[in-house]
């Protein structure tokens, strides 16, 4: 099955439509705010970040709201991409070959679809991470309303929230690295929405085939 | 208090009963805690409820409300039967050895000798000592009838009232069957532990434990240890109040605890200055300094003085100071203070300016007489009579019938708004013809003057800030009203204007007398030069008196209240003294403020020494006989004739004609018997196990208006109810203070878990308590701290009501209460001696509202 609608003029391929891009950037903005303020609360050495963002009180006030926004956008991503993020046999192969991927020997990689296994991991990592952050975040948002005999919820939250955050930070750093430095064109794809044919062929050959009609792994 | 607040720290044993000092006198209670902490003193609490005081006690006993005399009588029995009394003290400092009149009969059937069923009073002439001197060892020969004063009616005059014999018979072996000691033993032999259990509900074993512990201070004849008894209105506010307190006093005399540091009988008064109000005779039956009020039969000053001045009555070989012998000096000086130059020897010191009193005008009678139309106008200055009750509805009904009411207050109170109390309709309101003036007064911080505390200390306080709004000082209001009345009499004339026109009112600012000036007048001054014959100290005319020993009965001194004489002398205002030093470490604080009488801190302190004048306990030396100086000296001012040698055997109880403490109260001292007897409260849950035929006090007073009703278990009123205060609140005052309202926001009713279960009540439910007189609605506090009791074999429940709410207050005005008054429930029935109403121990029923 081909998806000629993905092919747009000038030899480029539409990788992310507007909704996807918007969602991404809302999530990104929220996450960066959450990260900055979160880091300010994480370490005294970074507390100045909160001050720089308008004061720690404001940071504390907005952090949970930003968290809600972030979660909403992640949820939106889930709605948009959950199907595409399903784990496949190809993904397993991809992981087996991940060392080639990390050493830029992409030609030795099994062909990836619209999202390679790493991206899927990123997606699910953020998805589950944001759920954990939401749940624990709500507890941390209103600790004064958690009754004393349910205080274990607070105890769990203060641990799980930063631990999960650290996990997402790891994902985030790799995501950033990949998007900004490793894969030329990826950044543009979430700005303009399109990538070059070459980009698609190189990084997501299966997807490429799919859209140009040489489908090897049909998608629904 | 015979002793003082700080003095409590000197005790080894505390019996706290009829009071809940931790709740009501927390800051004084610290000294009880100090005794526990520093002397390992033991604290016994006997109370109908497990109170805040009980929470820090060594032993707690739950007692049935109104059964105190039975409990204390049981203790007396225990003391005598177990030889725990202070023998020397008893022989020499009490009337234990005195022999009582042959005609005297103990109340085995509930009645003492001399009862007249028609008038419901006693002829007390048999309640007297026998004349006759030393009968020691002559018990068997004491059969002959003593010389009785037969009331020979001569010349149509009423018989002369019986008097105490000049030389009473006594038996130092205490074996004479009519000796006070033997009568006492006989009287309380009926108060066995088993009987105590039947009446009070305290199990026998528990009672015996308490008895053993409390009397252990006199174990094996030891005289060094001291025990104290602390009580409050839990004893007073019963129809048997005075007798309960007397029982405690007798117990303390038996144990030799009176007059000693850490001992005594200590009434904790409930308010800042009701001790002072009593001293100053803000009550109908006294004049300042406990002078008796004149009666119509006192046809002139001489007759009055003769009636109220006691003659000594003591074994001839003993001595008695009989300080009331000086009564004429006090009375003349008082009249001189009242009427100044208008009081002369010629006009009997203006004696007839004083109203004569031959009937009861006490608190409950005010309302009864108002109800019956006698009292037409009433002043209520800081006195919330409707809320205070008893029988609030009756008081409201009485006020409806009054012509006018003048209220001086700082907050809106129930009394000033009786005409719109809950339940009065708009139509009914329009029918109420009472004119009510509500005058804004000054709060405590805006006034100076003195309060007298429970320990008899007069302390000057300063005004801290001006009054808000249009408030005025109380004394200015009274002065203005009085001076206007006086003006009217001057202008218009009227009934017997003399006392009004001639009242001494020479204050610098007559419209607003300075209280310091008034205190100087109360202290008194001399109009003539004077000299003390012993010390040669001289006074010039016009000078302040240094003490009441200077008072004269010739009109050369004036003194508003003889017991306060010495408070404001030429040395200045002694009530404002602030030297807190205490060299003896006994908490005497001799130079702090002024303590009446004569700055003595522990009353009867001569009794702290043995016969030779040596302190019973050398570690707690209050006063002692100094042989070299030939006088009594000490850390405290000796409450005694300073130069009376121990060999003279002067009794330490100098205000009694006998000079000794009264185990037996002779003649008319007490209306209902020389020894206290247990009678049931007016509303009794059981018949009196001692004498079912005479359940109630035969001379207790009830009232007869339609509002005066008394309930019985047969009518369904079978739960005993008592009322009390909380430490978080103060009477009907702090319901206006948001801080206190926050601490305890709502009225509640405390009840045992078992009762709640029986009635299907859970904590927080709204419940209705009803007596035959009225209802009270509040939330239920279900607690383990009140347990059901077995009274005379019958399971009995008690409940308790803190009474601080009414229909005006923060919570009331916000609609958070049911606006009922606790005293809707209480009966108007009074103790026959002190005329205090029975706020504690009446019968109710309870249901879920």
């Amino acid at each position, binding site marked *: 099955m081909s998806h000629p609608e993905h092919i747009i003029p*000038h*030899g480029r391929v539409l990788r992310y439509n507007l909704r996807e891009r918007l969602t991404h950037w809302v999530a990104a903005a929220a996450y960066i705010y959450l990260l900055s303020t979160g880091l*300010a*609360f*994480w*370490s*005294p050495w970074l*507390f100045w970040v*909160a001050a720089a963002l308008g004061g720690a*009180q404001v940071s504390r006030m907005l952090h949970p709201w930003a968290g809600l926004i972030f979660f909403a956008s992640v949820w939106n991503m889930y709605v948009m991409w959950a199907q595409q993020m399903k784990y496949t046999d190809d993904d397993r192969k991809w992981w087996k070959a991940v060392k080639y991927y*990390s*050493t*830029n020997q*992409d030609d030795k990689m099994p062909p990836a679809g619209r999202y390679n296994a790493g991206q899927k991991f990123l997606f699910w990592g953020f998805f589950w991470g944001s759920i954990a952050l939401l749940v624990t975040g709500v507890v*941390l948002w209103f*600790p*004064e309303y958690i009754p*004393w005999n349910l*205080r274990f919820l*607070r105890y*769990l*939250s*203060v*641990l799980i929230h930063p*631990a999960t955050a*650290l996990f997402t*930070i*790891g994902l985030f*750093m*790799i995501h950033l*690295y990949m998007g900004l430095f*490793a894969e030329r064109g990826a950044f543009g794809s979430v700005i303009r929405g399109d990538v*070059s*044919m*070459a980009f698609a*062929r190189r990084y997501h050959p299966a997807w490429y085939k799919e859209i140009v009609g040489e489908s090897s792994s049909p998608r629904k | 208090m015979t002793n003082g607040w700080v003095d409590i720290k000197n005790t080894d044993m505390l019996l706290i009963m009829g009071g809940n000092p931790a*709740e009501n006198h*927390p*800051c004084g*209670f*610290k000294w009880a*805690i100090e005794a526990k*902490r520093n002397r*390992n003193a033991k604290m016994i609490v006997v109370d109908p409820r497990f109170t*805040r*005081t009980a*929470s*820090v006690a060594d032993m*707690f006993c739950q007692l049935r409300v109104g059964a105190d005399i039975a409990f204390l009588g049981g203790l007396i029995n225990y003391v005598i039967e177990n030889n725990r009394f202070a023998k020397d003290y008893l022989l020499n400092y009490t009337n234990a050895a005195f022999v009582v009149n042959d005609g005297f009969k103990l109340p085995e059937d509930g009645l003492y000798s001399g009862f007249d069923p028609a008038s419901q009073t006693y002829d007390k002439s048999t309640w007297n000592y026998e004349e006759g001197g030393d009968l020691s060892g002559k018990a068997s020969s004491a059969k002959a009838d003593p010389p009785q004063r037969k009331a020979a009616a001569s010349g149509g005059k009423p018989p002369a009232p019986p008097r105490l014999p000049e030389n009473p018979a006594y038996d130092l072996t205490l074996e004479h069957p009519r000796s006070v000691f033997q009568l006492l033993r006989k009287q309380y032999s009926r108060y066995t532990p088993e009987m105590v259990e039947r009446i009070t509900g305290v199990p026998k074993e528990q009672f015996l434990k308490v008895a053993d512990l409390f009397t252990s201070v006199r174990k094996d004849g030891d005289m060094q240890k001291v025990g104290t008894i602390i009580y409050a209105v839990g004893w007073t506010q019963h129809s048997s109040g005075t007798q309960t307190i007397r029982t405690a006093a007798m117990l303390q005399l038996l144990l030799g605890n009176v007059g000693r540091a850490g001992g005594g009988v200590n009434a904790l008064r409930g308010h800042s200055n009701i001790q002072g109000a009593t001293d100053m005779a803000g009550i109908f039956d006294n004049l300042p300094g406990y002078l008796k009020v004149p009666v119509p039969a006192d046809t002139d000053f001489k007759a009055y003085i003769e009636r109220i001045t006691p003659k000594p009555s003591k074994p001839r070989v003993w001595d008695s100071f009989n300080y009331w012998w000086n009564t004429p000096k006090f009375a003349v000086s008082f009249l001189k203070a009242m009427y100044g130059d208008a009081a002369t020897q010629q006009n009997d010191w203006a004696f007839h300016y004083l109203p004569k009193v031959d009937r009861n005008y006490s608190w409950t009678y005010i309302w009864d007489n108002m109800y019956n139309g006698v009292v037409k106008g009433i002043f209520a200055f800081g006195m919330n009579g409707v809320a205070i009750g008893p029988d609030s509805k009756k008081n409201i009904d009485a006020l409806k019938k009054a012509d006018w009411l003048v209220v001086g207050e700082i907050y809106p109170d129930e009394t000033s708004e009786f005409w719109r109390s809950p339940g009065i309709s708009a139509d009914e309101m329009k029918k109420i013809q009472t004119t009510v003036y509500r005058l804004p007064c000054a709060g405590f911080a805006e006034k100076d003057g003195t309060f007298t505390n429970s320990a008899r200390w007069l302390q000057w306080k300063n005004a801290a800030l001006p009054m808000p709004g249009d408030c005025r000082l109380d004394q200015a209001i009274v002065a203005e009203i009085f001076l206007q009345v006086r003006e009217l009499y001057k202008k218009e004339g009227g009934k017997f204007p003399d006392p009004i026109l001639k009242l001494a009112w020479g204050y610098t600012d007559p419209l607003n007398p300075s209280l310091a000036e008034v205190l100087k007048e109360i202290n008194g001054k001399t109009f003539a030069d004077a000299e003390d014959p012993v010390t040669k100290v001289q006074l010039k005319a016009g000078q302040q008196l240094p003490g009441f020993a200077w008072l004269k009965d010739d009109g050369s001194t004036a003194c508003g209240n003889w017991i306060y004489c010495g408070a404001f002398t030429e040395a200045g205002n002694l009530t404002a003294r602030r030297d807190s030093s205490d060299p003896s470490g006994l908490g005497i604080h001799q130079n702090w403020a002024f303590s009446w009488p004569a700055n003595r801190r522990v009353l009867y302190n001569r009794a702290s020494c043995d016969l030779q004048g040596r302190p019973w306990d050398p570690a707690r030396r209050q006063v002692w006989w100094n042989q070299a100086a030939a006088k009594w000296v000490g850390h405290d001012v000796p409450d005694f004739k300073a130069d009376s040698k121990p060999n003279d055997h002067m009794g330490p109880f100098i205000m009694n004609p006998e000079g000794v403490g009264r185990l037996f109260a002779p003649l008319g001292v007490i209306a209902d018997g020389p020894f206290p007897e247990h009678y049931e409260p007016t509303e009794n849950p059981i018949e009196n196990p001692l004498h079912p035929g005479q359940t109630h006090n035969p001379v207790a007073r009830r009232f007869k208006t339609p509002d005066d009703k008394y309930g019985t278990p047969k009518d369904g009123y079978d739960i005993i109810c008592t009322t009390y205060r909380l*430490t*978080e609140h103060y009477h009907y005052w702090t319901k206006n203070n948001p*801080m*206190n309202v*926050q601490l305890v*926001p709502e009225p509640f009713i405390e009840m045992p878990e078992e009762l709640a279960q029986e009635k299907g009540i859970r904590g927080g439910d709204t419940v209705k308590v009803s007596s035959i007189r009225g209802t009270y609605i509040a*939330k*239920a*506090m*279900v607690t*383990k701290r009140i347990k059901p009791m077995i009274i005379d074999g019958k399971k009995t429940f008690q409940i308790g009501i803190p009474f601080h709410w009414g229909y005006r207050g923060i919570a009331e005005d916000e609609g958070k209460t049911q606006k009922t008054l606790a005293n809707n429930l209480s009966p108007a029935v009074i103790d026959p001696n002190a005329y205090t109403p029975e706020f504690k121990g009446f019968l109710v029923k309870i249901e879920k509202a």
Partner: protein
Amino acid sequence: MSQAILRVQKISGHAGSVPGEDTQREYTVCKLIDTTTCIGCKACEVACMEWNDLPFGETVFGNTYQTMPETRWNYWNLILFNEHEREDGSLMWLMRKNQCMHCAEPGCLAACPADGAIVQYTNGIVDFQQANCIGCGYCITGCPFDIPKMNPKTHRVFKCTLCTDRVSEGLEPACIKSCPTGCLHFGSKDDMLELAGNRSKQLREHSNFPNAGVYDPPGVGGTGVIYVLHDASNPEVYGGLPKNPRVPWSVKLWKGPLKWLGNVAMVGGLIGLFVHYLRYGPKEREEEDLVSGPGGGKT
């Protein structure tokens, strides 16, 4: 200590050294609460409310003498009332003044991320600085005694200050001064421990309390508020006084190992990625992209 004003020894969420830390010779202040002589009169509650000008709050009857179920942001000092039946059937009415314990190792301070929102002075007082408080409520989680409370309006946390304004002027805290029975006492920690020890001994020897003892829990490094209890083996009956309070394990884990792990991981990650870039560079050259695209891609 009278004129030796409060110097800071520990600061929450603070980077760098703490002025005052280990530089000040000073004794630790301590509040001794003898529950065996507490009559639950609430003078301390009022004194606290009055001195600190705390605004009034609504209360409702709760079948108890206790003013309210627990302390509030505007009610720092609360006596807990408990009716307790001993094994022999006798009744005890336990009253315990509850307030900030001023732990030597305060869980609130450990948990607080805001620079200077919680400080510990060299005399041991743990004080909240509302101006620095960010309202995160971590202190609520950090406290093993359930003491810090949030003002819902201003979103700042409050608790007993041990009357720093009084103590720094040489006065005792307001609650201490008011206590009628003297069940509250104030002084140096050493003196209070001695007093408490003596009192416990007296209770064991002269009263019916063989298990009387002092509550100064080591789990939080000892406290600036210590209790004498009738039965030190069973503090829970005093309205849930924890037997062995500790800073919650998760707070310790979070502020300890997790923090270091996280920091190492984050910094390590950054370094790793940087090194990766240096070693491998981007996945492809721009020109590669340009020439290899089948559709040319260039216009």
